[in-house]
């Protein structure tokens, strides 16, 4: 458990009281199976020449609309572009130590995809072949998947009024099923894209780094980042990293940042950051009613106690008053005769009744202010 996850648990524990412990089980559960023999692609940035043939192939095999600039227009490389609903892969130019490099952007096909854990209608599937695919038929169009994807990959058909869908690279799933390579991989003239089993690709990347330590930064982007991804990136060495072995995410930060990759995502799947919070849901559901029911019980019994005390006091006062009145009337009877006593009794009773009425009215307000 890393620090961030621990804090996440604490954070929700602030809401869930001291009940974080059972929530941990939820935080640890792996929601997506890590498929052993899944495929991936290794993109070797040092080999990429920015020819955009992968873009063109992607466009063709997926029958995407023609872009405004033709694929042989290499000026667009200088503009920072991102994937969209109609461009599932783009190649951008970056600079490391004043030298130009190119990187191809597309869905990373994460092992435990953020988009999939964020989708509340279960539109995304992580398939055993490694691809992450999307089923638009149940998509509500909330676009939370786009908020969640740490790589800014999914695009939305904003221009589509009635059936707008989220779109992204499918790893050419239909082609994989037919035993063909992804369109881009097949088109790349430089062998900058290598298709294979993910575990083999990691070995291959290690070998390339080992054989040519001056050429590469010793960090395979996607091996662990965001919980691991099927598509991984091998970056060139910079002045900082050249000759250093196993630089780790911190050591690779600068180079990766230069080619637009974030090394701060952590090695946990992104969805796990929310599982701690979700884990407290059943606890709140279980304990809140008890807590507030208890508070209600306390306030009710306090009310009942007050009521009872008031009743007893009122009865005592009434008895006192009756005794005093009796006493007074008897005295008057002795001194002034029964007639005067009768008048006095009537007067006293009227006065008491009047006061009782007045007190009743007042108590309505008093009750409000008292509680």
């Amino acid at each position, binding site marked *: 458990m890393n620090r961030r996850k621990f804090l996440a648990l604490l954070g929700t524990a602030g809401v869930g009281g001291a009940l974080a412990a059972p929530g941990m089980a939820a935080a640890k559960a792996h929601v997506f199976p890590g498929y052993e023999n899944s495929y991936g692609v290794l993109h070797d940035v040092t080999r990429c020449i920015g020819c955009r043939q992968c873009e063109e192939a992607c466009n063709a095999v997926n029958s995407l609309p023609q872009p405004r600039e033709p694929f042989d227009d290499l000026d667009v490389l200088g503009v920072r572009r*991102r994937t969209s609903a109609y461009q599932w892969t783009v190649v951008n130019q970056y600079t490391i130590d004043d030298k130009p490099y190119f990187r191809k952007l597309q869905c990373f096909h994460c092992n435990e995809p953020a988009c999939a*854990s964020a989708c509340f209608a279960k539109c995304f599937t992580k398939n055993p072949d490694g691809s992450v695919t999307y089923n638009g038929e149940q998509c509500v169009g909330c676009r939370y998947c786009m908020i969640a994807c740490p790589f800014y990959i999914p695009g939305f058909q904003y221009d589509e009024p009635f059936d707008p869908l989220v779109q992204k690279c499918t790893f050419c799933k239909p082609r994989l099923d037919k035993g063909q390579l992804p369109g881009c991989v097949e088109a790349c003239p430089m062998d900058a894209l290598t298709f294979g089993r993910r575990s083999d690709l990691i070995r291959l990347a290690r070998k390339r780094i080992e054989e040519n330590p001056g050429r590469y930064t010793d960090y395979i982007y996607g091996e662990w980042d965001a919980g691991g991804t099927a598509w991984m990136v091998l970056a060139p060495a910079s002045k900082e990293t050249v000759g250093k072995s196993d630089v780790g995410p911190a050591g690779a930060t600068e180079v990766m940042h230069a080619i637009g990759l974030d090394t701060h995502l952590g090695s946990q799947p992104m969805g796990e950051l929310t599982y701690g919070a979700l884990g407290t849901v059943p606890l*709140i559901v279980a304990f809140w009613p008890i807590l507030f029911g208890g508070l209600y019980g306390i306030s009710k019994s306090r009310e009942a106690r007050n009521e009872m005390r008031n009743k007893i006091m009122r009865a005592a006062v009434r008895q006192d008053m009756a005794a005093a009145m009796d006493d007074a009337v008897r005295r008057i009877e002795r001194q002034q005769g029964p007639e005067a006593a009768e008048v006095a009794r009537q007067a006293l009773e009227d006065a008491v009744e009047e006061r009782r009425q007045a007190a009743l009215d007042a108590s309505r307000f008093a009750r409000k202010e008292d509680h």
Partner: protein
Amino acid sequence: MAEHYDIPMPTRDQMLNLTPFFRLTPGNIITYIILAVGLVVTVMRFTLGIGAVSNLDDNYPWGIWIGFDLLCGVALAAGGYFTTVACYVLGLKRFHSAVRPAVTTAFLGYFFVVVALHYDLGHPLRLPYAFFYPGTTSVLFEVGLCVATYVTVLFCEFSVMPIEWLAHRFPILRIFHKLITKTVILLTIFGVTLSTLHQSSLGSLFLIAPGKLHPLWYSPFMPMFFFVSSMAAGASMVIFEGMLTHKGLQFYMDTNHAKDSKLVTLSFSRAASFILMGYFMLKLIDMIVQNNMGYLFSGYGVLWLVEMFGFVLLPALIYAKGARDGNEHICQIGSIITVLGIIFNRFNVSIIAFNWHLPAAERYFPSWHEITVSVFIVTLIITVYRFIVYHMPVLYEHPNFRHHG
């Protein structure tokens, strides 16, 4: 006994009281202009698509329709659970007259959150799909489930008001009325449970995007921050609305309501002051623990400091002073600043500090259509609220249903 002055109460023969809507007051004229423009934009949104009316793009899939209509809408409707818990669970009967207006606003608030959501969703009609294909790993699923259930709870709590209005004509409704008044405590506890869950989950929504949200706002504690600030929002909205109703709807108030409202304002101010103070401390500690001091000396740092000192600490102090001096007006100023502060905070989290590392050219600013829709929704809430107050016993006790809770 409640005095009714001469509240224009609907009777069996005169069920409707629409004259206030036909008066040519500036308020009415502005309302009708906004509603007209809003309708036009609504038609545009549902015929031309989201892209045609909004500045949303792939980097900013969520704009003010989520940042304001959803996040602020839900937070500012927190008065419902806040007031019902204070009155029914804690037995603070002196807040009784505040319950009905708070429940009404909460119900309208949530109802229109759902309405507004339809503008933002690509497939609004598929909203129920979330329950057919439940994505149980999604925070949004939990939010959706809680909000859907809570709207139902609020509808039940609210229903006693229309029933008291319609009971002249449909006496059968009295049975339902009795049922609701008997179960009010259950509804309240159910409501506060659901509120705790989804108020905090709105904060959890952003937990999944640590790389996109600025570290001064991103925190594993976001769920708690959202929940705690929703309490302050709830208390402040009750005070804020109390101020507004006294300015326009005072003819629909009985003496009890008018008398109690000062007490409600002062007590809620005291509570809000405590909550805001606690919230301020929590945020401060979080900032220090996460080692974010360095960020304070940037543009975002200034923004954060303005939010924390101008919109959290300041209103906390204003509330404290107002409550101690027994000065309603000071408290009302506190409530205005808190409400603005909640909006400011939700905007910061969902829009301003979101995608903070993107170059300025790729940042989002809402289109006039988007702003129109948000203003349209708020205007609708106000208009429906007025309709309700003109017809139903919200600010007065109905003589036929006294002491029914």
